[in-house]
């Protein structure tokens, strides 16, 4: 039963979605939109599992005393701060005890992590007391401070200036720099892999070299190279892409059919 019902659900909803594509009527469209909302809502509920997993793995690293395990504190405090910023916003001009509250909560998170990570009961008790005390203090601050408030159902938190600062000056620089490392990796990958070992590797190498020289004024016949690289992008590249797209399309349809018909069951656990 535990396995049959899920496969039944896959079959029923899969078949419905296949035929929905051919039925433009408003009623079928309504069901379609409703089902897409299901997917979104299920995905967001599952995020709690993800955050829990992140917490568990971080604590585990500290517990095992792995090298660099202490960095996990940064992860969880960062996670907590961003969430706190996103749900709060100042109500007047000043911030009141907001930063004290943030600090108290962060300390509470850290002591909770220590609580889970410690093994002997004496330490466990100490950290339990500490986190309990900090939590009470944080709740008290939250109750008695009027300078800021929680906004759960309205997006005021997105305009919290700390939320914006964390986004602009922590997230964006690191993510953009991570992306820009590609400039170096594309160079090292080219150096490492572009060797004329055989015909295929040579073709790959020559095509890449030609396109990379498309604006190089130092090589003879520069204009010809520019035209040739334009041609490479529009003719062989197009042919290659089209062939792959068709194969992928059939591959997706084939795999999805097997999933719906219950032939392919590898994605579902047993027991």
């Amino acid at each position, binding site marked *: 039963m535990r396995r049959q019902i899920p496969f039944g659900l896959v079959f029923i909803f899969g078949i419905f979605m296949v035929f929905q594509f051919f039925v433009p009527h408003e009623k079928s469209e309504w069901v379609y939109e409703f089902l897409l909302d299901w997917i979104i809502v299920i995905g967001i509920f599952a995020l709690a599992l993800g955050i829990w997993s992140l917490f568990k793995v971080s604590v585990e690293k500290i517990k095992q005393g792995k090298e660099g395990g202490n960095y996990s504190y940064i992860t969880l405090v960062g996670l907590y701060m961003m969430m706190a910023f996103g749900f709060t916003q100042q109500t007047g001009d000043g911030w009141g005890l907001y930063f004290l509250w943030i600090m108290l909560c962060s300390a509470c998170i850290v002591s909770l992590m220590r609580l889970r990570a410690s093994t002997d009961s004496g330490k466990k008790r100490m950290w339990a007391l500490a986190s309990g005390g900090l939590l009470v203090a944080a709740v008290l601050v939250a109750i008695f401070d009027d300078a800021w408030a929680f906004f759960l159902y309205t997006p005021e938190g997105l305009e919290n200036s700390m939320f914006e600062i964390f986004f602009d000056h922590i997230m964006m620089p690191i993510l953009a720099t991570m992306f820009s490392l590609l*400039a*170096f990796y*594309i*160079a*090292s990958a*080219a*150096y*490492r892999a*572009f*060797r*004329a*070992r055989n015909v295929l590797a040579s073709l790959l*190498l020559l095509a*890449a*070299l030609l396109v*990379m*020289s*498309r*604006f*190089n*004024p*130092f090589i003879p016949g*520069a*204009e010809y190279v*520019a035209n040739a690289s*334009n041609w490479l*992008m*529009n003719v062989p590249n197009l042919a290659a892409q089209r062939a792959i797209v068709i194969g992928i399309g059939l591959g997706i349809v084939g795999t999805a059919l097997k999933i719906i018909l219950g032939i392919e069951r590898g994605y579902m656990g047993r027991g």
Partner: protein
Amino acid sequence: MELFERLMKLDRRWVFLLLIIVCVWAYASSFSVPILVMPEVQSIYDKVEGLPEGSVVLVAIDYDPNNLAELHPMTYALVEQCWRKKIKTIFTALSMNGPGMCVQAIRDITDSVSRDKEYNGVMYKGREVVNGVDYCFLGYKPYYAIVILGMGQAFNQPYPTDYYGTPLDEVPMMRGIINYDQVDLVVDISGGNITDAWISYGQGRFGFDLALGLTGVMTAQYYPYLGSGQIIGIMGGLLGAAQYEKLTDNPGRAKDGMRVQLPAHLVIILFIVMGNVGFFANKWRMKREGRA
């Protein structure tokens, strides 16, 4: 022989180091790289250069901030060339965020034209560029296809006033300029599908000279129009912008970008070549040793 093996198995951090050094050096220094000018860019330049003083060029600023890096340099080079040669320009912005781009460009270029400067060996005196005399900015209107068609009848039909609210009939430079018939060249600088409307509704119906400035990724798909003669030229991406900056002898951000791009590409090519030299030398040696 050891040298060749080393060439093959160089630590990748040397690649990184050389690339960083080259990029930072190229970015911080002010040398210029030779830029190969393609005929499709040259033709735009020649067209503008051949226009007499007092001619009219329509520059359509149809991009928004995310394409700014590639397309802004084209606007700067082209408009500065026009204003230095005392060619009047009409600006339109048919994309939602276009006016912001256009206002910024007008402000910066006005500033630049007010100084004395030499281009291609010709000295130009700095002069005040006056709104309504040297240029007219029409602003943003939705439904670009209809606006493009409307301007074919009369500019004041889709745009009764200019961007700043002056009735178009009272703008001095628009006297005698009724529709595309009085415009000598239309340049569409665009990061989206407005280009298609300029080609089919604008050029296709009214037959004016049309040149395009496009983002790098878009460029390839518009070459067919060049072949069929519907457009007189294309500036494609940073590369096209740099070529235009070179032609107008007005180095800007695109040439700065190319100053980094070219050496960086050369470094990568150099490493590829080194790797292959090492590879073949090694193979040759192995063969020889195997025989011996």
